[in-house]
C-alpha cells in the first residue's frame, strides 16, 4: 500500500480511510442503540483508532536516512498541511482551548490570534529558506549556516529544552484520555499512551509520523466539528454555528449582568471548599477584559514561539520543493483554522446550555438538590470536573456557586446537551489523536536532533546509515520514557507547560534562525551569544517571576520569551558587529538559500 505510486493514490487512500471511520462511528451508534455500554464504546473508539495508526506506522517502516528524517521529501502540500495541523494541534488545543475561552474570554483568545498569526512569520521569514537549505533538522541549519560544533550544540540544547517541556504535557494528555476511556489508573495509562505514540514513529521515523498525522488530523477534526454542529442544531442556535451565534453571544452578555457577574464575589473561605483545578465563571464572555498590552504581549510571544518550534519547522522539510513549502504553510493554517474558529463557538454553546434558565439543560436558578441529582452532574462531579455549593444558603444555584474544570467544556458538553454517548467516545478518540500526533512530532524532533546533530555530526561523523538509524530509534524510546516518567509525576498543568515551550523556543532560536537568512552579517559568535544568552535570560526571568519576583513591563511567566528574545536579539547583533564578518563561502551560501531554484545547500545524503 505504501509502495509504488502511493503518493499519487493519497486522495483515494485517505478518502477510503475517512469513509471507513465514518462507517465505524455509525456502527458504534447502532451498537449503542442495541445496548452496548458507554465504557465498551469508549474502549472501542480508542483501541480502533490507535490500532489504525499502528498499522500505518508499520507500513511506513524504512531503512533510509532520507525517508527516516524527512519522509523522502515528497509529501504533497495539502497532505503536509493536514499533517502539520495535527502536529500543531495538541491535547491543549483540543481539550483545553475551548475551556480556556469559556473561563477567561477575550484575554485568553490572544492565544487564538497568536497560534495562527505565527504561521505568517513561518511562511514569510523561514520555512521556504530552510527547505531550500536541505537540512534534516533545525540545528542542522544553525550548525551549517554559522559553522562549528558549539553553535550546533546550543541549538540542540534549546530545541531539547523547549520540546521536552512540551512533550511531557502531551504524554500527560494521552494518559488522561487513556485512563478515562480504558478505565485504568493514570500512572499506567501514561505508558499505554507512550507505547501508542512510539508505534507510530519508531519504524518509519518522519515517514511514519507524516502518514499517521494525516490520519490523526481526520479523526480529530471530525471529533471536534461534529459535536459543535450537532449541539448548535439541537439547541436551535443555528445550522452553521460560526455564522449564526451572534444572538447567543449577546444572550450570554445579558445573563451575565442579570446574574451579577463581577458584582457577587465569593469569600476566600468559600472558595477554599472548591476542589483544586475547578473554576467558576468570573470573566465576561465576549467583552474586552484584558489590557491591550496583556493581549498583545501574549499573542506576540505565541507568534514568535510558533516560528521557532522545531517540530513545526521540520514538517516543511518534507515538501518536494520550496514553492510547495510556502503553499503548505497556507494549507496548514487553513486546517488549523477549521478547529480554532470552532473553539469559541463550542465555548459559547457550552456556556449558554449551562447558564440559560430558558433551556432545559440550564442549571443556574434551579435548586441545588435538583442539580445534584442530574445524571451527568453526578458523573462529572465524580470525575472531579464539576462542583456546586450553596454558599449563600438560599437553596438555589447561583452563577458564582457553579464550578467546572477546563477540560469539561470539550469532554462534558456533548453529554450535557443530551447527545448520544457515541459522541463522547468520538471526542475521546479525537483528543487522543491530537495529543498523540503532537507528542510524536516532538519526540521525533528531539531524537532526530540528538541522533543527527549530536551523534552523527559531532560525535561519530563516520557512522553508517544503519547505525545512525539504530541510534535514532533507541533515542526515540529513551526520550519517550523519560517524558512519560515526568508526565506520570504530574508536576504541571497541560496548558502552562505548552505556553512555556513557546517561550523557551523563541528565547533561544527565533533570532538566530531569522537573522541566519535575512542578515548576511550575522556570524557564529553572534549566534552563539544569541542562543546562549537568550535561553539563559529567559529561564532566569521565569525562575525569578515564579519565585515571587514582580517582573517588569508587564511580562509574566507566560510571556517571558519576550524578554529572552529581546536579550537574544541585542546580544546577537552586538556580538556579530564587534567580531569579524562571516567568510565569503558562508556569504555565498546565504545568497543561494535566498533563491528557490538550484541545488539545496546540503546534499540528499548528508
Amino acid at each position, binding site marked *: 500500500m505504501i509502495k509504488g505510486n502511493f503518493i499519487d493514490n493519497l486522495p483515494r487512500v485517505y478518502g477510503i480511510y475517512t469513509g471507513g471511520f465514518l462507517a465505524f462511528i455509525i456502527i458504534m451508534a447502532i451498537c449503542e442503540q442495541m445496548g452496548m455500554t458507554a465504557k465498551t464504546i469508549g474502549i472501542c473508539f480508542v483501541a480502533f483508532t490507535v490500532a489504525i495508526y499502528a498499522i500505518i506506522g508499520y507500513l511506513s517502516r524504512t531503512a533510509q536516512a532520507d525517508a527516516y528524517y524527512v519522509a523522502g521529501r515528497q509529501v504533497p502540500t495539502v497532505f503536509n498541511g493536514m499533517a502539520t495541523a495535527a502536529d500543531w494541534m495538541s491535547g491543549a488545543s483540543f481539550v483545553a482551548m475551548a475551556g480556556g475561552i469559556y473561563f477567561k474570554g477575550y484575554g485568553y483568545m490572544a492565544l487564538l490570534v497568536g497560534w*495562527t498569526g505565527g504561521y505568517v512569520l513561518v511562511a*514569510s521569514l523561514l520555512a521556504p529558506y530552510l527547505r531550500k537549505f536541505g537540512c534534516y533538522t533545525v540545528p542542522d541549519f544553525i550548525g551549517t549556516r554559522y559553522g562549528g560544533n558549539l553553535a550546533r550544540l546550543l541549538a540542540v540544547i534549546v530545541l531539547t529544552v523547549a520540546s521536552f517541556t512540551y512533550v511531557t504535557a502531551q504524554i500527560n494528555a494521552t494518559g488522561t484520555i487513556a485512563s478515562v476511556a480504558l478505565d485504568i489508573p493514570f500512572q499506567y495509562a501514561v505508558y499505554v499512551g507512550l507505547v501508542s505514540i512510539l508505534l507510530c514513529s519508531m519504524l518509519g521515523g518522519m515517514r511514519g509520523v507524516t502518514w499517521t498525522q494525516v490520519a490523526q488530523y481526520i479523526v480529530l477534526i471530525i471529533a471536534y466539528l461534529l459535536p459543535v454542529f450537532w449541539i448548535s442544531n439541537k439547541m436551535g442556535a443555528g445550522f452553521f454555528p460560526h455564522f449564526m451565534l451572534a444572538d447567543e453571544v449577546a444572550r450570554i452578555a445579558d445573563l451575565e449582568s442579570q446574574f451579577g457577574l463581577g458584582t457577587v464575589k465569593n469569600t476566600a473561605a468559600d472558595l477554599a471548599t472548591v476542589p483544586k483545578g475547578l473554576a467558576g465563571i468570573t470573566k465576561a464572555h465576549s467583552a474586552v477584559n484584558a489590557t491591550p498590552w496583556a493581549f498583545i504581549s501574549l499573542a506576540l510571544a505565541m507568534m514568535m514561539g510558533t516560528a521557532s518550534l522545531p517540530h513545526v519547522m521540520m514538517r516543511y522539510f518534507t515538501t*518536494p520543493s520550496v514553492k510547495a513549502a510556502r503553499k503548505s504553510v497556507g494549507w496548514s493554517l487553513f486546517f488549523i483554522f477549521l478547529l480554532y474558529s470552532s473553539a469559541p463557538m463550542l465555548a459559547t454553546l457550552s456556556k449558554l446550555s449551562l447558564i440559560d434558565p430558558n433551556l432545559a439543560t440550564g442549571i443556574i436558578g434551579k435548586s441545588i438538590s435538583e442539580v445534584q441529582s442530574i445524571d451527568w452532574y453526578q458523573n462529572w462531579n465524580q470525575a472531579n470536573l464539576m462542583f456546586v455549593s450553596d454558599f449563600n444558603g438560599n437553596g438555589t444555584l447561583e452563577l458564582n456557586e457553579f464550578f467546572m474544570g477546563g477540560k469539561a467544556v470539550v469532554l462534558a458538553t456533548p453529554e450535557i446537551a443530551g447527545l448520544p454517548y457515541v459522541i463522547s467516545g468520538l471526542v475521546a478518540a479525537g483528543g487522543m489523536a491530537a495529543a498523540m500526533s503532537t507528542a510524536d512530532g516532538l519526540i521525533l524532533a528531539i531524537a532526530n536532533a540528538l541522533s543527527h546533530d549530536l551523534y552523527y555530526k559531532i560525535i561519530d561523523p563516520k557512522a553508517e546509515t544503519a547505525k545512525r538509524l539504530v541510534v535514532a530509534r533507541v533515542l526515540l524510546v529513551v526520550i519517550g520514557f523519560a517524558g512519560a516518567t515526568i508526565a506520570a509525576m504530574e508536576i504541571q498543568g497541560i496548558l502552562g507547560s505548552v505556553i512555556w515551550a513557546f517561550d523557551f523556543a523563541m528565547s533561544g532560536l527565533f533570532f538566530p534562525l531569522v537573522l541566519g537568512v535575512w542578515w548576511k552579517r550575522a556570524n557564529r559568535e553572534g549566534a552563539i551569544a544569541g542562543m546562549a544568552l537568550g535561553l539563559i535570560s529567559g529561564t532566569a526571568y521565569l525562575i525569578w517571576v515564579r519565585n515571587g519576583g514582580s517582573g517588569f513591563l508587564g511580562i509574566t511567566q507566560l510571556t517571558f520569551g519576550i524578554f529572552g528574545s529581546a536579550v537574544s536579539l541585542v546580544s546577537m547583533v552586538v556580538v556579530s558587529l564587534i567580531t569579524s564578518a562571516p567568510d565569503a563561502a558562508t556569504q555565498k551560501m546565504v545568497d543561494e538559500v535566498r533563491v528557490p*531554484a538550484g541545488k539545496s545547500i546540503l546534499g540528499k545524503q548528508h
Partner: protein
Amino acid sequence: MSKQAQHWEKTRGLLMITLAIWFVFSIGIFLFGAEMESVGGPFGYPLTYWFTCQGSLGIFVILIFWFANRQEKIDEEFGFSEKGDD
C-alpha cells in the same frame, strides 16, 4: 545591480508588505480592543470578538496564500522558479 540583488530587493519588499498586514491584524487592531467593542462586526458579533475568533485568523490564511503566489511570481520573473513539481 545583479539579477540576484534585484530579486532579493523585490522579495524583501514583499516581506515588508506581508509583515505590515500581519502586524495590523495581529497587534495593531488589538490596541483598540475596547474602542472597537461597541461596533457591530460581521454576522452580528461584536467587532473585537469577531476578530479574535474568526477575522484575524481567516485573514492570516488568505495572507499566506497571497504571499505564496506573489513570491512565486517574483521568482518566475527572474527565472529562479523551480521547474516541474508543485
